[in-house]
């Protein structure tokens, strides 16, 4: 009380008080203006990015239109460009990567939230999280010199023997191939899917599994029938987030996919992705049309990833809102 009582007297002292108040509001206004500026900079940047991609790809968009994404010819000399093999390669490699990564990362996430001994949970999650910290180019290096030789000499012949009757595992076994790129992608997206779905599983109320256990379910049945269904939407979000990562991944894929503009049925054959073609050809492009076509590819890639990420966030956000948790998953 006494401090409050002295306050007005100090402020009432002739002019300095009002002056400091004025200064205060001026300081506040300047502060807010500076913050607003940095805050505005981000949307402006995105707008600028879109504008640059749009105008940069104008030449190719006007020449090829939507045929760009439905034709397969890629000939920089004749200035004819079609991105279908690239789009196909991006989608297929990401899909295969998810096929490998999703069961694994969900297994890890479920084990870590439901079964693992308490003191091991966080350390294991941290260790697998380290996978996300490894730079893409290091994955590429490791892929070229360690993973591919192993896959080519042991795994691929085995797969060929087992599934050789299907068109997907026929033909000569190359080292750099669609399948090799997918395997490295799977390793790279796994930590993302794992950590987000782990957070979603942690947000499942304990009452869900307790109720299942009380009804006599085994631990697996409780997970299967109570925990996972409750977290389904969020897990879907985690998977799509992983998909977003896989679609845009550049270096490791460029180094492992073999870089050939072709749609092949066999997964042992080399392929190409949108990100990889930009990485390989942009610095060496010679004509305006070539640059423009590559920028067009970047525009398509940008559009696809924005769409995919928006879906993921929508799903995760719905779960987060319902449970009031998992906000850091965003």
């Amino acid at each position, binding site marked *: 009380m006494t401090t409050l009582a002295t*306050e007005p007297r100090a402020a009432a002292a002739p002019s300095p008080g009002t002056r400091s108040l004025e200064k*205060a509001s001026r*300081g*506040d206004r300047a*502060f807010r203006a500076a*913050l607003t500026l*940095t*805050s505005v*900079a*981000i*949307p402006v*940047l*995105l707008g*600028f*990015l879109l504008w*640059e*991609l749009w*105008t*940069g790809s104008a030449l190719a968009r006007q020449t090829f239109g939507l045929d760009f994404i439905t034709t397969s010819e890629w000939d920089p000399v004749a200035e004819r460009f079609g991105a279908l093999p690239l789009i196909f390669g991006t989608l297929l490699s990401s899909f295969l990567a998810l096929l490998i990564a999703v*069961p*694994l*990362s969900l*297994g890890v996430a*479920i*084990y870590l939230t439901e*079964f693992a001994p308490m003191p091991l949970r966080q350390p*294991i999650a941290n*260790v*697998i999280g*380290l*996978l996300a*910290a*490894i*730079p893409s*180019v*290091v994955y*590429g*290096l*490791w892929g*070229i*010199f*360690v993973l591919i030789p192993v896959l080519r000499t042991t795994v691929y012949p085995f797969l060929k023997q087992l599934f050789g009757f299907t068109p997907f595992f026929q033909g000569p076994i190359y080292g750099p191939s669609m399948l090799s790129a997918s395997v490295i992608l799977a*390793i790279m997206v796994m930590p993302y899917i794992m950590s987000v779905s782990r957070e979603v599983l942690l947000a499942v109320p304990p009452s869900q599994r307790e109720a299942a256990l009380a009804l006599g379910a*085994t631990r*697996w*049945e409780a997970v299967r029938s109570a925990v996972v269904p409750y977290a389904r939407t969020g897990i879907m979000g985690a998977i799509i987030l992983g998909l977003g990562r896989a679609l*845009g991944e*550049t*270096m490791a894929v460029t180094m492992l996919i073999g870089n050939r503009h072709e749609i092949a049925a066999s997964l042992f054959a080399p392929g190409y992705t949108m*990100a990889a073609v930009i*990485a390989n050809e*942009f*610095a060496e492009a010679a004509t305006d049309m070539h640059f423009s076509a590559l*920028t067009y590819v*970047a525009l398509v890639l*940008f559009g696809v*990833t*924005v769409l995919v990420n*928006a879906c993921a*966030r929508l799903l995760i956000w719905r779960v987060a809102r319902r449970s009031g948790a998992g906000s850091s998953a965003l």
Partner: protein
Amino acid sequence: MRRRAFRRFKSNVMTALLMLSVLIAVLPLVFILVNLIIKGAGSLSIDFFTKMPAPAGESGGGVAHAIVGSLLMVGTACLIGIPVGIGAGIFSAEYPGSKLATMTRFVADVLNGTPSIVIGVFAWTWIVANQKHFSGFAGSVALAILMVPMVMRTTEEMIRLVPNSLREAALALGFQRWRTSLQIVLMTALPGILTGALLAVARVAGETAPLLFTALGSQYMSTRLNEPMAALPLTVYTYATGPFEEWHRYAWAAALVLIILVFLLNIGARLATRRMARLRG
């Protein structure tokens, strides 16, 4: 009774399978680290850090130019990206209801999900195409754009964690609003913000794709940002895809240096978080 035993058996089998998935998931990390050490550590020497690469076919030499280039470019990227990220983060935490904050948050998420190669194309059309030459600065800008959304989101989250009572106490003591924000709120959240910044640095330090056609890479020592510049990840890429045995040796060693750097930054970030957690507790 038989059915009960079967169900318990099934539960145990599934648990074992889940455990197996953890083993499989940890395996790549172990292999990558072991391979990096086996193939990279032998080439690490004082020369590796202080000398320029030897001509193709000769042994010896180092990647001093790439280390210097990486430090310069990442440093410049920090100078641009961290203030913008922190400023925008403070804004959206301190004025959370405003339309601008909502929009910035959304846009930051979009940027965060944008492939780094697309950011590289943007930096090329914006800077390289206009200047008509490759430059380390264009690379820095691309890296800065990658940093901004990461720094912004962690700043925002960390500031949200600062108890409102602290803010009210400062205001009640007659602190002006901006001083409250900077001296009380920001200072309290600083360890957390530092974590976010360090993680952002760790991520862009390993980025190759946005540098491919902005900084381009170089065989020479270059300390000027308006020239093509070498960087560690670019060096790993060039040497790994090159034809010479000697180059591959460089690539492994450079990758080992890169990963030690990235892990150190990650550990630093984690230590800062721990301090933040203690502060909160």
